[in-house]
């Protein structure tokens, strides 16, 4: 098991390096002057007359490998003797849409998104797996039919349609929940430094740390509609996969053998069938991260939540090159890490993986 984990961990930086190399190749293909704007903005964005000098100063007219190395680890300029940090020092350039460094923008927006994902992923995983198992166990009965119908419906509804409908029905029709992250009353609190200290930029967590239950409930309430929007489609996929995987497993000989031995049904399902059905479920669960990310862009836009999804949408439509590349690197790293988690979970649930 240990050697398996070590092998997997050793592969991670290699994959990450290759992916970042691909991202850099996109950046490298830009004209040098565009790179100056994309990466050297900030408090003192360059004047037109300074462009050529900055291209020389930052070696943006050099070859691929030189630029890649300096982009990655930074460099000390031979012209002014200053050290200019690279990707590994957290320098992702200047985001014109966020009006701040990309790293700072990601630092601001990721917690907002992370809060939404935390609240969404639990219903997806728990609800999806639970209902998938129940549907398989009660195949062709009412629950199975209802689950199938709901999951097909959910999978057919575009995220933006669902989000808008929920917003119009609940907020527009009944005045329930709301847009954004907080109500005005709570905003008045969190915008007042005398009343609020921001620890994580996740309002629900910060509210607990600040001991303010009103803001906590308010933050959670504002997460409900986005959470449903984000969860629904992904939940449907997981239900379908879990159900079919369980159905296959329940037909295996060892399950019949367990039943024949007189084991209680819950032990047969929980101990024998469920664990063996988990492999494809884990695969899909990690793929859901991608689904969540694409859904986030739309969900955050519809509900006006200033998270990383909305940031990416603004960066992409505003041709904010540094912002788009920064988001791409963020997603790249996220994918690598989720795949690592999936690999480790395979090993945990299936001995053949870790032994093979």
């Amino acid at each position: 098991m240990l050697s398996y984990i070590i092998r997997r961990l050793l592969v991670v930086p290699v994959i990450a390096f290759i992916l970042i190399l691909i991202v850099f190749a996109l950046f490298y293909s830009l004209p040098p002057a565009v790179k100056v704007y994309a990466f050297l903005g900030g408090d003192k964005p360059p004047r037109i007359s300074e462009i050529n000098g900055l291209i020389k100063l930052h070696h943006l007219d050099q070859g691929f490998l030189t630029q890649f190395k300096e982009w990655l680890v930074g460099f000390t300029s031979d012209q002014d003797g200053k050290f200019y940090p690279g990707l590994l020092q957290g320098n992702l350039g200047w985001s014109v849409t966020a009006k701040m460094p990309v790293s700072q923008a990601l630092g601001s927006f990721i917690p907002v998104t992370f809060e939404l994902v935390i609240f969404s992923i639990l219903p997806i995983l728990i609800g999806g797996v639970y209902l998938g198992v129940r549907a398989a166990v009660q195949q062709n009965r009412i629950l199975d039919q209802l689950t199938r119908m709901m999951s097909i419906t959910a999978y057919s509804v575009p995220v933006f349609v669902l989000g808008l409908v929920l917003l119009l029905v609940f907020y527009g029709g009944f005045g329930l929940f709301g847009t954004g992250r907080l109500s005005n009353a709570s905003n008045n609190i969190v915008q007042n430094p005398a009343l609020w200290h921001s620890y994580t930029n996740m309002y629900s967590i910060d509210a607990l740390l600040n001991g303010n239950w009103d803001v906590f409930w308010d933050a959670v309430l504002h997460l409900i509609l986005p959470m449903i929007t984000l969860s629904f489609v992904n939940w449907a996929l997981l239900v379908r996969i879990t159900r079919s995987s369980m159905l296959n497993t329940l037909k295996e000989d060892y399950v019949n053998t367990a039943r024949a031995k007189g084991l209680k049904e819950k032990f047969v399902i929980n101990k024998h069938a469920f664990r063996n059905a988990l492999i494809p479920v884990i695969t899909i669960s990690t793929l859901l991260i991608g689904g969540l990310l694409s859904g986030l862009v739309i969900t955050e836009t519809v509900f006006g939540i200033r998270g990383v999804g909305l940031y990416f949408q603004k960066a992409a439509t505003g041709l904010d090159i540094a912002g788009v590349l920064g988001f791409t690197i963020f997603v790249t790293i996220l994918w690598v890490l989720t795949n690592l988690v999936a690999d480790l979970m395979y090993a945990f649930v299936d001995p053949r993986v870790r032994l093979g």
Partner: protein
Amino acid sequence: MWWFRSKSKIVIVLLALTFVWAMAGAGSAAAKDQTDVTTFVYDTFGEQQSLDPVWLFDTSSSAVAQNMYDALVFYKGGTGDLVPIVASALPTISADNLTFTFSIRSGIKFHNGDTLTPADVQYSLLRLLVTDRDGGSGFIFNGALLGVSGTRDSSGKLNTDLIDIVCGYNGKQQVVTVDSNNVVIHLVTAFGPMLQTLATTETGIVSKKVVVDKGGWPGCTGDRTADVANFTKYNNPPNQANTELFDVDAGSGPYSLQNWDKANRITTLKAFADYWQGDASKNGSFSTVVYKTVEDDTARILELQNGATDFIDPGTNANLPKIYSTAGSRTLPTLPSLVSQVICFNFDIQLPGGSNVLAGSGKLDGNGIPHDFFQDLHIRKAFNFLFDQSLAIQRAYVGLAQATATPHVAGLNFYNADQVGVNASASIPNNGADLNKAADELKQAFGGTIAAPGPAWTSGFVFTASYNSGNKNRQIWLNLLQANLQALNDQGKYGRHGGLNMSVRNVPFAQLLNEIVDGTLPIHTCGWAPDYTDAADYLLQWMGSRAVGSAYSGTDNIDKLPAWSFPGATETLHKPYNNWDELLMLGQSSAAQDVRQDVYYTLQKLYVDNALEITVAQPTQPEVMAHWLNNFTYNVADNGSTIGPVFNPASERILSKVAEGDGKDNVCGSFPGVASVVGGATPAATSCTGAAISPIPGNQ
């Protein structure tokens, strides 16, 4: 199976409880918003660029800063009359109109507790002149106060001799002086609207101490050499974040800055307890004022419906029917405005390194456009012929706008109602698109003829047009332009080529403003609200060499404009660009009304003859607010006209709300200087009518 059954019951019970709790909580959260009469919330699609008076020059920034900074004077209610604010009385003005003497009100406190002095007033006005940033408000003041159109020449070199006027060296009269408790402004040339310009947010009075402590301009030191060095250092800062008050409060206004949350784009102001006109929260107005950026139209409208906001930008007039049916809203769609809306060309697109992502290859090779693409009159005319002004007015403004030939607007002095637009076939306002003429112009561009088309037609082009996010009106204009270009592109009879392509992008407002000054945008949307109600403000802005209008997108580039002796120019104006400035200065300073009329009529003709931009419309101003909002005042002359200052009793502004709404029409305003009202019934009261709200046509 009992295990599953019991679990199911537990899950169902838990879910039901959660649902009940959520519904109860959600409802109470919404109700809490609606009943909070101490907080005013304004949802807008824009976001302020800066809160520093010397930098800000857009309505979004102004709307916030108006509540933080008081100026010497301000408008009384909805009228054009000015009342003293920081000044204790209206100024005494010399017979030659060159000297304005203000006595300064005593007892005014800054938000940091310091007392406002005449020296702070002097410093604030001088700092504005010293800063004079590209794309800023400097051009309004430079002519009258410094006798120049800008503090830098066309190459961007600072005219350091101006320090003699700013600080009073070499026998020159210092432009702003302090005499005991008075502040005296000495004009170089007479300027009729001078007093009005001192009502703008840009002239808001700042605390010298706060600015200097933040590392800002130290003021005149008495050492000319040092002052020249400081002038050089603080003139034309490269970015709004470089000015000291970008997100710092140095004001004395009714509200102080509590927080500008840039990540969530929420700006919160708190009532200033020691405000000289009293604490707003204890005098009938709000304790908290919140400006929120909400770019999605539906979200803004739903927030209005649910009481989460009190005032919204409708985004586009096309949303008005939807808003009419929104419970709890009050919509005034036909208020006259002096706003002009245009699509701007950049005459010298900045292509650092030879290209930029918006202008493609930077060449006329089918993959981009060259830097001087819009210097060609045929190109500008072609794009004018591609734009269907009538359709744009219908689609974006549901007809609640007037077609104009130039950005000079109806209702202002010296507006020439007989001036026809570039593509007016018979008369204004019937400016439809004419694809045949557009094609002919494109063929003739860059040395071509209709028989032997030039490269713009044979090679085609690609570029990107930009507008500010959330502004649906502007999106509609550009999409209409794009559609007609595509239609032309698709017509085989004009010959096949690389394609005529324009894509459309949106960027946050503050970014758009920065990119306009950078000069990297090929085409972008523009609008203008009045700094003062005079023709000078408009034509100077669009045609002056230091203005931010289209031809000068990126004022560093003035000298690169090759031919200001445009074909068709009259003999008087058949000179390089600085004669346009001279003409503008003549119009600004002349007391003779017939001379001014000649000047401004000529400028309007020149504007059309040279197809300087694509004029879109003079729209009416739709004001959309919750019905419980009380005592809303509208003033066309106020450049932050969307909402204006929330609390300023001296200028008859005490915005408030009542919990249930009083069902009365509480809109005040008399709309000074507006001779023609565009469309529909317009409230014309000089004070709040207090009449019951009558149904708005279409609000059924």
